[in-house]
């Protein structure tokens, strides 16, 4: 209870009762935009990340379930441009740096810094996306080739959808930062945009490890 003072107010009963002596807590001095777990929007985003993480986790369960049934996993003739994918993962990991800088700049209300780092992060994201899409066209198997193909294409497709959505969001924020009007709540939005980006990156690290560090797959590579 921050500052109790007596003033004109009623008891919570809606029939307005005359009780000028009712104690009050005045909240008019409290801020309207805060960061981190104090903000409802942070909880909303964390909830969404929990939902999507569960989805990815179940997809991995599906992967291992199908793998457990198979005698040969992955099936013959699977090739994945491993070095290029690894390099692309590196670029994706690198993008965490500028996105973290954006979050820091948003806390400081530093417009120039926000613009600069967000453009950098967005460009890195778009490079990753471009390489990913190009690799789709060049995959040696398809979703309807076999169960392995189905689950790997679904994992790739679902994660790429996340990349697309997060990149569109990045682009919109770039436009916002140059065109405006920038409202105070956008600072929180920018920080959460970075948080979501970390999720997109981390989830790919896990998914990548499962698909491409699969002992069966490494065997094929050799």
């Amino acid at each position, binding site marked *: 209870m921050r500052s109790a003072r007596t003033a004109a107010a009623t*008891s919570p009963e809606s029939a*307005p009762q005359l009780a000028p002596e009712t104690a009050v807590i*005045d*909240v*008019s001095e409290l801020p309207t935009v805060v960061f981190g777990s104090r903000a409802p929007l942070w*909880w*909303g985003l964390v909830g969404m990340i929990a939902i999507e993480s569960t989805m990815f986790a179940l997809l991995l369960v599906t992967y291992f379930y199908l793998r457990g049934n*198979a005698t040969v996993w992955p099936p013959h003739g699977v090739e994945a441009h491993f070095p290029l994918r690894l390099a692309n993962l590196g670029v994706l990991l690198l993008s965490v740096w500028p996105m973290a800088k954006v979050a820091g700049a948003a806390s400081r209300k530093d417009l120039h810094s926000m613009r600069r780092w967000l453009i950098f992060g967005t460009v890195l994201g778009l490079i990753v996306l471009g390489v990913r899409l190009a690799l789709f066209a060049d995959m040696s198997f398809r979703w*309807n080739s076999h169960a392995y193909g189905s689950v790997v294409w679904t994992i790739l497709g679902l994660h790429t959808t996340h990349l697309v959505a997060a990149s569109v969001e990045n682009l919109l924020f770039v436009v916002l930062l140059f065109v405006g009007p920038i409202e*105070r709540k956008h600072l929180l939005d920018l920080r959460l945009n970075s948080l979501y980006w970390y999720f997109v990156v981390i989830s790919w690290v896990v998914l990548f490890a499962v698909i491409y560090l699969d002992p069966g797959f490494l065997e094929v590579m050799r």
Partner: protein
Amino acid sequence: MSAATFDATLEQEQKTLERTWAQPSGLVGFFTNIDHKTIGLRYVVTAFVFFLFGGIEALAMRLQLARPESHLLNPDLYNQVFTVHGSTMMFLFAVPVMEGMGIYLVPLMVGTRNVAFPRLNAFGYWSYLIGGLLLYSSFFLNTGPDAGWFAYVPLAGPEYSPGKRVDVWAQMITFTEFSALVVSIELIVTTFKLRAPGMSLNRMPLFVWSMLVTAFMILFAMPAIMLASLILAMDRQVATHFFNPGEGGDVILWQHLFWFFGHPEVYIIFIPALGMISSILPTFTRRPVFGYLAMVLSLVATGFIGFGLWVHHMFATGLPQLGQSFFTAASIMIAIPSGVQVSCWLATLWGRRPRLATPVLFVLGFFAIFVAGGLTGVMLAAVPFNLQVHDTFFVVAHFHYVLIGGAVFPLLGGIHFWFPKATGRRMSEALGKVSFWLLFAGFNLTFFPMHILGLHGMPRRVYTYPAESGWASLNLLATIGAFILGLGVLVFLVNVVRSLRQGEVAGEDPWEGSPGLEWSISSPPPPYNYLYIPTVAGRYALWDRRPDQPVVTGLSRTRREILVTGTLDAEPDHRDILPNPTVWPLLLALASGVGFIGAIFTPWGILWGAVAAAIALIGWFWPRGDLQRIHFEEQP
């Protein structure tokens, strides 16, 4: 300040607040409303409309089964009817109606003005509505799903279910899961961040706890069915092989994914009902619920154990012994928290003679029916018995005892209890009692014989049975019971409609002496809920109120400000500004409708929907620039 000026100031404040939070009116207003009370009521009313449809389907099935070798419904129509009945009751009635009660009540109970994300909330409702309309328009076009409400593959796969029926089911799932996930986020964030000052976690009303546990269960259970229905649709549409054994897929995978959602689903329906009982009993016994801590821990334990039961639906699939033992143990274990709660309620009632108002009758009816359903549940947890009655009417009897007894009875009790709050009028006690007894008698008459039919070996999901089976008389009894049950529902509806017009006008608290915050404001509540955000000094806000209990001032009256408080102790933290009414949630729901319904016909539908949804989202988040613009040295 003199009394007269004080009055005038107060009236002025009330008017300003009313203008700021006013619900939009007219046709446009209908589509742009984002108030939690309106959205909550829409959920409840829509769910009851679907409940009636589901009930009519149930009666059709009972008519068909009333005598052997009947040809009232042909086998194909019967398959559609039981599939649509099950899907309706689970996805379009039971889950949404509980969500609606939560969306309506939780913000009132925690003392705030709306849910945390009002536009998202409206989007959830529109999604649900589109899903329901999709299912029923398909059903009326003879394209109703017909592979059971759990759509087991290979029956539901491309080979054995050509046509669009199962695709309709899969997309209906998508819409209703969207809505459930939205509600879960709303409830979690509203509960964690928008509680009135003083309402620390250990002072939250038990109904709020139950909705919080439910919301977390939705969060982790629903993604399973999203994924399952997605890959089922892909197997059917673009020839993936998840469930195709010929190419390395597996049909049992479907059952795992489905029941990893499906079993928690039962608790998602049941746990809110527990919260309703815990809200009704203190009012009528005039004492706190016995064992608050035990109650909360039981709810949380149920939430966790609920995720460890799914395989008991799959005992007939030939699982390893160890797995069977584990899931048997878990299935028996979940009886413990349920037993703790029933014991706590009985202790609450101990030595009291509560007035047998209609809500209390429904609670007592719950005890009788739910305990019976729980007992057959413990029986079914044992593998040998389970195998004996698997896929028989015994299982049908069991889950109707648990779902109707465990959820619908408390729900109807809750509806009678909160009806005056939501409408400003009381329901008729006489009609309420008549409907209760009709429902109670009709229910037992319908479903008790099914235990015996199941033990005699009558299988589920068969459209008829031979005369020499000897099942005719019990089936006829069940059909008679079903019509008595239907009559009970009819009396309930008459009571609702009649009470809306002629019911006795309810004051703030028609039950006199209720402890919850929601009973401190007018009925129906004003659009802003609380003129001043209240503060709370105990678990039963109105009972524990101190003479000098403070209220919160300093929130803007000219824009939609709410108070955000700390997650654990609910100390005032900051002010948040909620959006004004808007049509974008509806447009986003329509865009996703285009995508997912389009996907039934062509995979490109997803792309159209994605583009439309992106446009809708950009419109939704378009900066208005009228709020708290930042002044940088060079604002763009």
